[in-house]
């Protein structure tokens, strides 16, 4: 068997392991008596209309606000050089890497009824009775999604802007166009594919949102993900849950086609980032002031919530005006924690880390073996198929897996399976791009110098792939660490991870402990984030996408 055939067979096996659970969901949805009449009845129902309207509208506004807020910042990042730009750009991706449950926690701490934001409003506008009360509802959900995606959009759009040569603006000016015309006729058309791509991506993530909507939406606001979970977990209507998952998959097909189309438009664009002029505060006073204002606003609204999770974890009962204390952390070792969460802290941390390390390693090894085997092939149909899990929700996949082999395999194994396949597209795209980047010549050079076998792998391949592999591992581990849906469904209550623990603590209104545990969780996510950033080579530049389930 040739190498290509072996690689294709390997890819098909991996694809099969992913597709079988999805087929199980579709099978349960459609291959049973009365399946089609039930489906039609559901499609005609008010519930379908409500969920569809909410899912699409919140996803639309989330994408709209994420991009609207990102464009001005992208201009400064794409057109000017300033001190700390690299660091800022790095930090910007942090919210995107955070587990959904932590985002919710940060939102509650900062924008909640008794949150910092409302306290500030009371201080700065005394007697006006101003307060943000919409966190648990539509506005809160959109706010959380914007919190999640805004900085990511800013970073990607800024990087695209950097690749648009300033010479184009000069050429346009020489030809007689004013600033506005140049922006409208030259810059904007070049940015539109990236804006479109990011818009569809944020829409997709928000459409599939689970944790944010589950906690902030209650029973009033439901995406299909949440509805599937409620049908499965609360109402125990398994076949109905399958049908909902199938409907969601059909709806996603259209979004994914759109996403693929916009992605191709972005990939077609070329251009290397050139030298940028520095932002000069003395000569560009207004511009600098606007930028600083923008930066301060962004930090306030998007990074303060995280900061206050950390801060309040050291306050008595998590109250902003409480005394400094380590009580919240001490309580993590107490009976109360065990009573609410169902496991002691060490078991929770151990389970989370064990799962994360396993998922990170397995995903990295599988993806690298395939990327290596297919290194001579251009990006083809098989690679595209391997990206399909990007468009399937954790919940649907987990649900299918449970249906298929739920009784035969232990919960931890099922969770690893689900998380590996959901992390796979991202990790594979990253490693495939990195592996193809340096081609074969370096290995051939090493061979002509006398290296072979393991020596070749250890002295050339591994050092060259080290950063990409560590990024791949960190992505896999981060996805596993942040996943709530697959653990809730497949863990069947027996597997308690950090995400599940925070979710249970919030559910029991044990906020002080939730904040303390959340802080530990943030630190863990930050470590993984630093590993990813260490190996980072440029978002979107290699044709791969970044993703996270919210």
């Amino acid at each position, binding site marked *: 068997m040739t190498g290509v055939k072996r690689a294709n067979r390997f890819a098909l096996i991996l694809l099969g392991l992913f597709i079988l659970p999805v087929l199980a969901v579709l099978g349960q949805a459609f291959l049973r008596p009365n399946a089609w009449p039930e489906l039609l009845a559901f499609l005609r129902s008010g519930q379908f209309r409500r969920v569809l309207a909410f899912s699409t509208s919140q996803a639309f506004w989330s994408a709209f606000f994420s991009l609207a807020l990102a464009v001005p910042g992208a201009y400064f990042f794409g057109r000017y050089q300033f001190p700390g730009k690299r660091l800022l750009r790095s930090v910007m991706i942090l919210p995107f890497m955070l587990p959904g449950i932590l985002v919710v926690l940060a939102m509650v701490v900062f924008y909640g009824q008794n949150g910092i934001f409302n306290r500030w409003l009371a201080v700065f506008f005394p007697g006006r009775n101003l307060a943000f009360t919409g966190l648990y509802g539509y506005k809160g959900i959109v706010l959380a999604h914007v919190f999640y995606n805004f900085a990511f959009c800013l970073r990607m759009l800024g990087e695209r802007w950097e690749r648009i040569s300033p010479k184009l603006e000069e050429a346009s000016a020489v030809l007689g166009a004013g600033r506005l015309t140049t922006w409208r006729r030259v810059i904007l058309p070049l940015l539109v594919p990236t804006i479109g791509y990011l818009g569809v991506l944020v829409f997709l993530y928000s459409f599939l949102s689970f944790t944010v909507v589950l906690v902030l939406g209650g029973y009033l606001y439901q995406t299909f993900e949440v509805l599937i979970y409620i049908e499965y977990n609360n109402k125990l209507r398994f076949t109905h849950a399958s049908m909902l998952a199938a409907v969601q998959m059909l709806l996603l097909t259209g979004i994914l086609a759109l996403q693929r189309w916009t992605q191709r438009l972005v990939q077609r664009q070329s251009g290397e980032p050139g030298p940028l002029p520095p932002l000069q505060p003395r000569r560009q006073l207004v511009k600098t002031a606007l930028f600083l204002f923008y930066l301060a606003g962004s930090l306030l609204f998007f990074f303060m919530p995280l900061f206050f999770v950390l801060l309040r974890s050291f306050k008595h009962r998590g109250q902003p005006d409480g005394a400094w204390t380590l009580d919240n952390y001490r309580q993590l070792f107490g009976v109360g924690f065990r009573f609410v969460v169902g496991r002691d802290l060490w078991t929770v941390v151990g389970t989370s880390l064990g799962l994360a390390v396993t998922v990170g390693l397995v995903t990295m090894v599988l993806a690298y073996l395939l990327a290596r085997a297919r290194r001579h092939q251009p990006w083809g149909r098989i690679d595209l198929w391997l990206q399909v899990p990007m468009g399937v929700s954790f919940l649907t996949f987990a649900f299918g897996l449970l249906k298929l082999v739920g009784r035969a395999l232990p919960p931890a194994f099922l969770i690893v399976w689900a998380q590996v396949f959901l992390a796979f597209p991202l990790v594979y795209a990253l490693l495939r791009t990195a592996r193809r980047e340096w081609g074969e*010549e*370096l290995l*051939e*050079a*090493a*061979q*002509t110098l006398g*290296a*072979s076998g393991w020596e070749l792998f250890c*002295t050339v391949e591994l050092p060259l792939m080290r950063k990409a592999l560590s990024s791949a591992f960190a992505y896999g581990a981060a996805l596993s660490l942040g996943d709530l849906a697959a653990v809730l469904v497949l863990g069947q209550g027996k597997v308690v991870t950090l995400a599940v623990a925070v979710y249970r603590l919030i559910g029991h209104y044990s906020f002080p402990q939730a904040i303390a545990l959340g802080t530990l969780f943030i630190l863990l996510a930050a470590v993984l984030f630093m590993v990813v950033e260490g190996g980072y080579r440029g978002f979107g530049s290699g044709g791969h996408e970044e993703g996270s389930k919210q």
Partner: protein
Amino acid sequence: MKKDFLRIDVTKDFPEFRLTANLTVAEGEFFSLVGPSGCGKTTLLRLISGLLQPDHGRIILNGRDLTAVPVAERRIGFVFQDYALFPHLTVGENIEYGLKVRRLPAARRLERVRAMLAVFEITALADRRVQELSGGERQRVALARALAPEPFLLLLDEPFAALDYGLRRRLRRELKELQSRLGFTAIFVTHHQEEALSLSERLAVMQAGRILQVGTATEVYTNPAHPFVATFLGDANLIPCTVTPTAGGLQIHPQGGRAFTLPPPGTGADAFGHSSGGGSGAAGTAGQFFLMIRPEDVVFTSEDPLYRGVVATWEYLGYGSYAEVKTDNGPLLKVLTGKETRLALGTRVGLAFQKPALKLLPINGDYPS
């Protein structure tokens, strides 16, 4: 010095073409493979190095059959087109790599690395990352790395391709000087005729997977054996002509020009490229040929010219001028003149050929039988 230090007799099939090569390289020789992109030069290098396996045939280096020997054990140095320097290693570490994987003791490695750094005058760069180097510096590091393990043979795959003209010329001279000094055997691949002619002791011209001619630079330039060789190495006029043997020699009827007679084959350096009374099977036969004449061997004349025509192009080159003459009922002929000649476009001129420089070449590469 062994004349058949390297013997190659291989074929390799690809979907789009078949590579057939049969040649020998002498010990200490600087041999070039020259031809257009895609003619199989790099493939032949890869076959020699072991990065590719031939479908048939053998490669024998210094009496040892290498055909089944793994790449790592062949001790053949390779300088890649893009140098393929390891980006995770410093300059010194790159040079040391081949010695390390061959398990040389640390002291000897250090000594050899130092020596190579000194030979290539890059001692100051030893601790630099390869990303920080200029094109010329990278080229030196690649050469030093390939030569450090003291290979039996050095293969160079268009190592100057990425460099600008001035640097290219300088490094070319340096490479030649180094090869003479160190005495290594080298096979150099290029598609640059100037590079091949100036560097090589012998060269092989390749086209579409075949070696068309092997010889010294002078031989191949002055006596091309194939129309492709004539046009690829230097510029040439190829005029279709009919050859008729007569008692006084060969009667040549060039297309659109006046007929003339050349000395019979085998008398001195004849038009078939024989340097002495050879008269091989192809020579001396009647039929259709290409009459090959280099532009520098075409002269303007008003007395009994072979062709008449008008100047269609005139380019001043500084050291002379290049002209194209549209002949009456004949081909467009290229002329390289001295700097004293200046003609306006449209001027009517007569052209003659310097007869010793005329060559008869087979049409389609084969002599008529």
